[in-house]
């Protein structure tokens, strides 16, 4: 780690002020990405602003037809929340398959989506469930939030406050984990929502994306068979030593069918 100034503000305003004042400030949530990055000396921020001291950023609550998850809510909390498990069991299940117990008890939803790792799980939920991200400045539609590899619509100094997930009729998440990191090689969230079927894929591309052809096929018939012949093109998909673009494209189909089967059966 390089040296940096550490701040632990108690209000959002103080956090924003510290960020604005810093030459190169970065907020710290669960630290599950930021701390390893710092330890490997891959980042060198002048100031680290820990959000852990700010009251009210964590926790899950029901707001009308949506489940709102505070930015500092740990993955383990989402996985075990009765509210989430009742309303959107797919979201609880997704949170439960992130990393390991240590990671789930430290990592946060705000950190996960702000970081926008292409292999992270939450982006599939944000896009697949048609969520809305609320920041200190505005709200951002889930569909618009992820803009590239580790890129989001967040502006300089913009802090995620919460994510609001409309409760779907039914939904399921199917994940194919990377054997080494256990992040998603491919993860697919399939949801039947008030505004139609959504199919969102994480892991396969630069950022989470929807598969329109699957959505319309499932709109007609919400069965695995309906999408058996919907091929996903490998063009532009991620490639690494664990999975070629072709394999990823293939897995999108398999995981989508498994998610549909789980949602339809559940």
């Amino acid at each position, binding site marked *: 780690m390089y040296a940096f100034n550490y701040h632990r503000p108690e209000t959002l305003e103080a956090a924003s002020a510290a960020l604005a004042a810093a030459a190169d400030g970065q907020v710290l949530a669960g630290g599950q990405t930021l701390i390893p990055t710092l330890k490997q*000396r891959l980042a060198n921020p002048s100031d680290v602003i820990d959000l852990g001291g700010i009251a009210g950023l964590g926790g899950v609550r029901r707001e009308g037809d949506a489940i709102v998850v505070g930015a500092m809510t740990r993955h383990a909390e989402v996985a075990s929340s009765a509210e989430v498990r009742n309303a959107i069991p797919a979201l609880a299940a997704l949170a439960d398959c992130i990393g390991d117990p240590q990671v789930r008890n430290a990592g946060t939803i705000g950190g996960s989506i702000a970081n926008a790792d292409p292999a992270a799980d939450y982006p599939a939920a944000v896009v697949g469930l048609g969520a809305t991200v609320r920041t200190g400045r505005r709200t951002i539609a889930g569909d618009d939030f992820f803009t590239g590899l580790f890129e989001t619509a967040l502006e300089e100094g913009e802090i995620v406050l919460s994510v609001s997930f409309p409760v779907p009729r039914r939904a399921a998440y199917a994940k194919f984990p990377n*054997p*080494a990191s256990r992040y998603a090689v491919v993860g697919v969230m399939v949801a039947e929502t008030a505004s139609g079927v959504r199919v969102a894929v994480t892991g396969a591309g630069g950022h989470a994306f929807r598969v329109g052809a699957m959505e319309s096929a499932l709109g007609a018939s919400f069965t695995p068979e309906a999408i058996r012949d919907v091929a996903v093109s490998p063009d532009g998909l991620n490639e690494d*030593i664990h*999975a070629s673009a072709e394999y990823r494209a293939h*897995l999108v189909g398999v995981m989508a069918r498994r998610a549909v089967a789980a949602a339809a059966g559940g």
Partner: protein
Amino acid sequence: MAENGIGAAVPRTEDHRFLTGTGDYTDDTNLPHQTYAAFVRSTHPHATFTLDTSAAAAAPGVVAVLTGADFAADGKGSLICGWAVTGKDGEPHKAPPHPVLAADTVRHVGDAMAIVVAESARAARDAAEQVEVDYSPLPAVASMREALADGAPQIHAEAPGNLCYDWEIGDRAATDEAFARAHHVTRLDLVNNRLIPNAMEPRAAIGDYNPASGNYTLRLTSQNPHVHRLVLAAFVQIAPEHKLHVIAPDVGGGFGSKIFIYQEETAVLWAAGRIGRPVKWTADRSESFVADAHGRDHESHVELALDADGRFLGLRVSTLANMGAYLSTFASCVPSYLYGTLMQGQYTTGAIYCEVKAVFTNTTPVDALRGAGRPEATYVVERIVDRAAHETGIDPAELRRRNFIPSDAFPYPTQVALEYDSGNYALALDRALELADYAGFDARRAEAGARGKLRGIGLSAYIEACGIAPSQVVGSLGAGVGLWESGGIRFNPTGNVLVYTGSHSHGQGHETTFAQLVSDYLGVPFENVEVVHGDTEKTPFGMGTYGSRSLAVGGSALVKAMDKVIAKGRKIAAFSLEASEEDVEFSGGDFTVAGTDKRMNIAEVAFSAYVPHNYPLDELEPGLEETGFYDPANFTFPAGTHVCEVEVDPETGVTEIVNWVAVDDFGNVINPMIVEGQVHGGVAHGIGQALLEGCTYDAGGQLLTGSFMDYTMPRADDLPDMTVDTTCTPCPHNPLGVKGCGEAGAIAAPAAVMNAVTHALGTSAIDMPATPQAVWRALGSQSQARA
């Protein structure tokens, strides 16, 4: 059987400190005035370079920045390879210099160029980043085939064509003749994937120098502290042996990787002498990936000749073995004498020929890793035998049984220079088949098929040469050291015992097993025995722990010492009990006089030995302490059969191991629980190799699997429940009848897994690690081939 004696499943005494965080690892020690080291490592696989250390030397907290030029100026030597393998041409292998700090050329990513010593670890690392390296990149080569090709980049002037050696064993003409007679020939190309050892505790070292005495002390993560001392004294010439004290305290796993004498500990010790202060270095995990010797990395073409009855007439093996960029401490013997010599397997194969080209590449050096050569040999033999079974339509178990060396054929001289001492291969096979319900497999396969899964079953009837090793044999084969072991027994006046062993425990449980052995043999309560190891100033010279040798060789040395103790005790008892020595018997801790009720416990004898008020000193020496050195008469030959059953999800390519049976013949067993744990760990290692672990370089020599994000270590949920059982043919040539168990699982498992996977898939066209993608591809190419 005594409660804590030989054969008892005594819980490991060392586990309390390991599980409660009170172990004493190298990094736990901090010496007064200690400094910290960081290394400047090459980011290029092959380059010449110049260094500018001025900014680093001026950085805050920096004590010294030392380079290869400084090392050379001090007249120190380079690292060595301790085993000279002689090639087909009668020439010794090419062992180019392995500098402690590269002076002008780096040959792999991670090669150390400078050591920065500072007041804190952070200051050292900060300053290391300020060392300016001006690289002139050279063409690099990571693949063995490319390294051997004409016009390939030359890594060492001393090794033309990047060839370290071209070695052979067996009878080429007889093997050709056997193939000429063959009814059927099975052929297979196999890759034995490169592994990164990843011991839980990273390597660490603290060098210390006392200018007043001129003595050096090195604390480090070593499996063999005396060997470290010997090499650092005799070859690198840091300090003479009697001025160098090496301590290997608790060590958190080694798997071979902590046998070797590396750049870092050498540089740290030397630097401590230069600056007159202790210097500490602890690898971070990223360094471990590039700086710990890797394992395996073979490519082989294998052919098996069978007669019409399925009997093995001949085996022909041609292997390329990757040495990496330099020859590590024992690298040369691994793909030769620990590999080619095992090609007999458990079979009566009539003629065998194995040739191995060892190749330099711009990758991290490769050396022994759990099993070292023997997993590679077992993989060759057991994969080709299985393939032959499928080609000939003979059941794989039956084909093996038909070719087994019969249990009455021992001692059995092999075609490849060994003499197997004992074994009963059919017994282990039959037990394994029964425990695995081999007969019921077809029904399970059908049931799995109904669930859309491909089910396969695979056998591995492995053998290994352990208890390394008879010094005469290894000496005649080029080893620079003897491979005996030492043991010392010291009775204290109050009757408890200190056991000194030259073996080193870094996970094996010696503190328990050796205490059981001594307690049982001498009749001393288990709690009264303390095992001391890992310190060159405490124990007699020892060769250390690797090659499943600790009990077979180190335990036998203790037996020698204990026999001397008993002989001395008999003299003391005879004197004290006023009997003649010949009439004194020893059993269960008591010396008794035949035909009388006179008895003296060994604790009383010990007390007497230290209070010799009335001893006839010209006949009887005081004290009760003896040392034994044991040089084995032969290797030991653990063997057995492992059975693996898998289910493959054809949609994703995911392989799940659904059953595991291990039946091993380790000879006599001292602690069955520790043996079972060693089998579990070894099998986990082998499953890791077969399904998960694949060290990958890109063509230019950059390591792609440089962290746990990409290098897959086996985790608990990757592993099946295992049924572990043993058979026993005692080793006939060591006093304990033991064979060794530490590597067996890693040797047996990869072939068992891959035989099961290929059985499930119906194709052998897949290499380790059989990752989901690899399986998916194999299935895809197969369905294309069918279409």
